[in-house]
């Protein structure tokens, strides 16, 4: 075997430090983290090796590394690290850095992943909506019953969102393919399992969130994350359902509260609210170690909560009949909806795809753990 050349990259080390990995240099490679980690495979385990890669700035060894995504941020490692190197936080920082770098276009990656650019990210839908509504002379509070399509016609929403989401979907897919190919290239291993069976196994695992249950100090995250996970699935189904209603039986919004679609929508919204709140509370709880949730994490959590709250308010205020409040809230809600579903390849939500692929890959290469 020819010797690999290790080329330290000071710039990348500084990037990791700037991305919330300020403790990376504290690691002295004792591997206590790897010993206490419950979600690492036995062969070539993490996070010890990633910590030295990060200390030397070995970008190549990190960006195509499935293990970054096998990590569930349980923080057993951070709790037991004798040196305060907080591997959990380093992994979070590396994931953020990866999302940023692997984004298409890369500018969007920067805008969404960097907290200081959040207002700019929110300004995109704001200006877009304002322009559409302004040009079509809809920028006013409509008279009569509160029907949101009178303010923002459904057709406009469909055009804007379907095109934007499709575009986002395509670039996300491209990012995922790139990640997959790089992962395969830099980890030449034989496969013991096909992609489809491995992916099915992975998705089945997600339904139970069993890996979260293996976390030590952070095991409490399983239920809230499960709630949020299913809430998003529920809301996605709702969105498709309402579109179906609109075009096939031609039922107009608002849909009555007695409709099963509305049940699903309201249950999902509540699950998101409760799950999101629990996640945020969990993050502030003392779990016996200090972990720095990055501003990237917090920004995303806050936006999801705002999405959820404005959504619920949109419904409640409509039912209360306060039109002067209802339409502006609806407008704000749409901005957060845009942020969440159009920017997802660049936000924390992007982890869904990367993690699915990483776990699938680990299953294909015999590095699975019994979840």
């Amino acid at each position, binding site marked *: 075997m020819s010797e*690999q050349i290790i080329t330290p990259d000071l710039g990348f080390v500084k990037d990791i430090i700037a991305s919330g990995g300020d403790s990376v*240099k504290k690691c*002295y490679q004792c591997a206590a983290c790897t010993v206490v980690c419950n979600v690492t495979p036995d062969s070539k385990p993490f996070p*010890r*090796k990633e910590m030295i890669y990060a200390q*030397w700035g070995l970008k190549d060894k990190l960006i195509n590394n499935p293990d970054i995504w096998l990590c569930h941020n349980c923080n057993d490692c951070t709790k037991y690290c004798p040196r305060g190197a907080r591997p959990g936080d380093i992994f979070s920082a590396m994931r953020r850095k990866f999302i940023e770098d692997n984004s298409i276009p890369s500018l969007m990656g920067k805008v969404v992943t960097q907290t200081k650019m959040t207002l700019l990210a929110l300004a995109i839908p704001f200006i877009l909506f304002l322009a559409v509504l302004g040009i079509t002379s809809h920028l006013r509070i409509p008279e009569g019953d509160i029907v949101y399509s009178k303010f923002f016609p459904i057709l406009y929403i469909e055009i804007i969102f379907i095109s934007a989401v499709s575009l986002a979907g395509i670039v996300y897919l491209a990012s995922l393919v790139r990640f997959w190919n790089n992962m395969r290239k830099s980890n030449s291993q034989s496969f013991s399992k096909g992609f489809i069976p491995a992916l099915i196994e992975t998705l089945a695992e997600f339904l139970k969130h069993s890996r979260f249950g293996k976390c030590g100090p952070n095991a409490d995250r399983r239920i809230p994350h499960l709630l949020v996970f299913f809430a998003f699935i529920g809301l996605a189904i709702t969105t498709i359902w309402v579109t179906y209603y609109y075009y096939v039986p031609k039922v107009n919004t608002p849909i009555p509260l007695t409709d099963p679609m509305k049940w699903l929508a309201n249950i999902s919204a509540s699950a998101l609210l409760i799950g999101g709140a629990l996640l945020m509370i969990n993050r502030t709880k003392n779990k016996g170690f200090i972990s720095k949730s990055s501003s990237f994490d917090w920004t995303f959590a806050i936006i999801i909560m705002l999405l959820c709250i404005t959504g619920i308010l949109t419904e409640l205020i409509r039912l209360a009949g306060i039109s002067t409040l209802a339409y502006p809230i609806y407008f704000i809600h749409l901005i957060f909806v845009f942020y969440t579903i159009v920017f997802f390849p660049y936000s924390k939500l992007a982890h869904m795809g990367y993690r699915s692929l990483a776990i699938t890959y680990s299953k294909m290469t015999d590095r699975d753990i019994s979840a």
Partner: protein
Amino acid sequence: MEKKFGVYLCKGCGIEEAIDIERLSTIATKDMKMSLCRIHSALCAPEGIQLIKDDIKEGVNTIVIGACSPRVKFEEFDFPGTITERVNIREFVAWSQHPKTDDTQSLASDYLIMGIVRVQKGEPPEPNILEDLSNTLLVVGGGITGMTSALEAANAGYKIVLVEKEPQLGGFVNKLYKKIPTGEFKEPLIVDTDIDKMIKEVEIHPNIQVYKSAKVSKTDGQPGLYDVTISSNGNSETIKIGAIVLATGWKPYDANKLDHLGYGRFKNVVTNIEFEEIARKNNGKILRPTDRKEAKKVAFILCAGQRDPNHLPYCSAMCCTNSLKQAKYVRQNPDSVAMILYKDIRTPGRLEYYYSEAQNDPGVMLTKAEVTGVTNAGNGNLYVEMENSFFGEKVKVEADLVVLAIGMVPSTREPQEYLDGLTAASAKGDEAKKAYLDSTPAPEFILNLSYRQGPEIPSLEGAYGFADSNFICFQYETRRTGIYSAGAVKQPMNIAESQEDAAGAAFKAIQCIDHISKGIAMHPRAWDTTFPDVYLLRCTACKRCTEECPFGAIDEDEKGIPYYKINRCRRCGTCMGSCPERIVSFKDYSVDIIGSMIKSIDVPEEEFRIVSFVCENDAYPALDTAGINRKTIDSSVRFISLRCLGGMNLVWVADALSKGIDGVLLIGCKFGENYQCHFVKGSELADYRFGKVGETLDRLRLEAERVKMLQVSINEYDKLPEMINEFVEKVKEIGHNPFKGL
């Protein structure tokens, strides 16, 4: 001095529960006819001490204290101007015997009687103080260690003679660009050495006389009375010296032997010393040797030729921290990286914080690695190849400069190796010796001592030529009284450690001058004012004492009659043990005193009695510890403390056996010069003499198994009672000594 006796018995610490103190008191007053015997419930308490002091005021001057071990409460029971004997009825009796049995009682009574006999026979010591003693300290070596020793002692008011072989003071620190801060470890983690200020301080100090480009060509005499000849620029001068600090430091390991790491093959592979010079000459800029371009990727190979059986097998202790410091030189350019490839990072104590601070620098990159080679990467750059690194597989890094962290070789190593070779050759005969002398170039000696054991301070076997040190008890103790090694000549040290060590050695040297002026021995008997007194009229000039004295304290004149350089003597009594004429005595320790103690032991016909001679530095404390741990020792054994088993005289065995005592057991320290015995090899000498005990046994027609020698170290207290009891069982199997009751 007319002796007025006082016996004091303590009841505290469980003594009263094990021994009938009233009966013991009767032994003192009735059997031993002591006029005064007092009992107290806690003799070491202020009231108990006052009791004794009041009696001293009334004229009591010969005191026997039956209480705890003499190894404890020595400050409380210190009564200057008296003869005081401590009888250990706590550890040796109350704590290691079954309470209130007849056997226990007779053991306590034997110890008390032996103690009383001892003070009856002993005399108050009168210190032997020589005249015209010098208070001047000689410091050999003008590096950071030597200068620190000189300044510390000079500031304490002593005159110093400082000898440096180079034309300027400063030693290795002169070569450094920066040093590690001694206070807080904060960025940038490197500070000026300020060596110039220190050199100036030494040179202008009124108490320090500096000799540069100079060496010690002869060291004659003894502590307080050394005649040291200093040669400098063709001139010689002999100066009276009191004590000596040896601070000759170290030399870097020969990097030419490290060609597997590229040294010699590539100009851009340099040693840590050369790297300092590069940084210092270019004011911090790291310009590499080949093209004087700034090195921006510097690899540091730690333990280069160290912890390696083919080179230096030991760790030089300073290189890990020093390499981190040098990494910070590299990092003065914010774009540069320093790669540290280590076997282990060894930054003990506070230096751990230095390590973590340096490690926090994003451009200081560390990994454990076994460096397997250095190869050409073109343009003057190099690949450093490694295995077993934190990266897992075999990897290499490209560097534009490679720094080898080479280790320290003590300056004493070369003379030591030469002398060891000479000793080995001499053992093979005169011809081999001559061949050795002809074929081997003599190295530069450092102290050139006039000592029958050789011209240099000895080195322990397996100590790689580092100067002698009793590293277990007193790291400053060498086998040359009055000479104290300090700094990296003794063991690898960094600057801060050397300076601390230098101060310690200076104060040890001052203590030596002080003790000698009062006629007190140096360590380990650093309170002792007795000295070996020889009745020369009966000397047969057999030279055994001169041969056996571990400290070269005895020489003989032309007629072969011994004379003492008493300031070299450590009062071990080896000469007393060696003398077949039994003419060497101390005021409180002599063949007669110990013999009388043996004779005072009560030997009932139906009981077994065993005498055990134990050395005071290992066996005695081990027995104390066994007592503290309540280990039971057979009640037939009577321990007699010897300063060193080297003082063991065979006549005592005859005394014991002819009196009917059933067995004799010697307990000394482990053999071998490496075993850190304060008196070097007293135990071995005792064993050698013991080998001749057969004659005595034959004469008495006794079994050879009745006498035995055990070797123990101080920490073997848990095994010792068992070893002793085993011997007792053996003796009991043989049966009673037929001389008993005759």
